[in-house]
């Protein structure tokens, strides 16, 4: 699956110094959840972006520096919110369990 390496998505081709990357994986128990939807909400709760997870449950956002909320919607599960801080030059890795 595309870029599905152990420890997170492959960052080849991404200039991490110029990006505030938030990425991670959605899991149900130990199983990755593909086809879940992860929403990126800003510090006021305003919608910013949304991506579906890959077949391996992975997702990635190119955010801006700051505090964000990741809201994950998956079939047969209640929404899950996770707080995360993004900064240029760092990759915030988030594991979400539904």
């Amino acid at each position: 699956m595309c870029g599905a390496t152990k420890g997170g998505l492959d960052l080849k081709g991404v200039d991490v110094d110029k990006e505030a990357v938030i990425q991670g994986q959605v899991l149900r128990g130990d199983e990755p959840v593909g086809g879940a939807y992860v929403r990126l909400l800003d510090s006021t709760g305003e919608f910013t972006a949304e991506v579906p997870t890959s077949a391996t449950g992975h997702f990635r956002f190119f955010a801006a520096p700051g505090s964000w909320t990741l809201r994950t919607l998956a079939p047969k599960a209640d929404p899950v919110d996770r707080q995360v801080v993004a900064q240029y030059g760092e990759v915030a890795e988030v594991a979400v369990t539904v």
Partner: protein
Amino acid sequence: MSRESALVSADWVEEHKNDDGVVLIEVDEDVSAYDAGHIAGAIKLDWKDDLQDAVRRDFVNQEQFSALLSERGVKNDDTVVLYGGNNNWFASYAYWYFKLYGHSDVRLLDGGRKRWELDSRELTDEVVKRDATEYAAKAPNLDIRAFRDEVGEAIGVKNLVDVRSPDEYAGRLLAPAHLPQEQAQRAGHIPTAANIPWSKAANDDGTFRSDDELKTLYADAGVDFGKDTIAYCRIGERSAHTWFVLHEILGQENVKNYDGSWTEWGSLVGVPVALGDEPGKA
């Protein structure tokens, strides 16, 4: 128009998707989503390759739209049901085309692809081929499409609704975070426009909020329902979503989508631009 005539539920689609005269169409920014799995029987439209002119900045004209739908096997009297990813942004955008070109019966699947997937409903990768038809689009109905000159004249006169994110509206970003930050020459918004992000009209699962919630949302943000309204965003697809809410769900008359949107306005020489979180003065 009303919610009942413009929207269908996933249950309705399950029940009617094989009916004669019902055509499901998935419209996406990323058409690989359709190729990986779509609702059984649905054909696809690519918002860019199929719906934009390949040379000029404009969308397909009457002849091009007729040729496209003829080739895809859509009839003038079909019930067209649109759905897609991105919370139905591009499906709403295509819906607006169908209305602009006079298709009589077009609906949107409430919640689009996301709600369908979250319900664990079936998707298939089977190839769908419909027999060609002779579709005849009507002359464009410009009562629902705004151009830049009338947008300029609407400042301080009509409701202008900027449906982009607060950071784009204020001029802190040129495009939503997570997307490429190119396009317009200047950041900001059209003076007097209210900022009502498209996302406030939808629930987390992509379905539309209730009529009462929607009326309150726009009224509280300063939209005068007694006046004409023009909605815009960056390239006209998010504002098609809001046009759908105001014109098709709430039944407001005289609502236009300005598809030139910020990528046009923010690049025009000499037009007024407001910065910051307030609408600004005419």
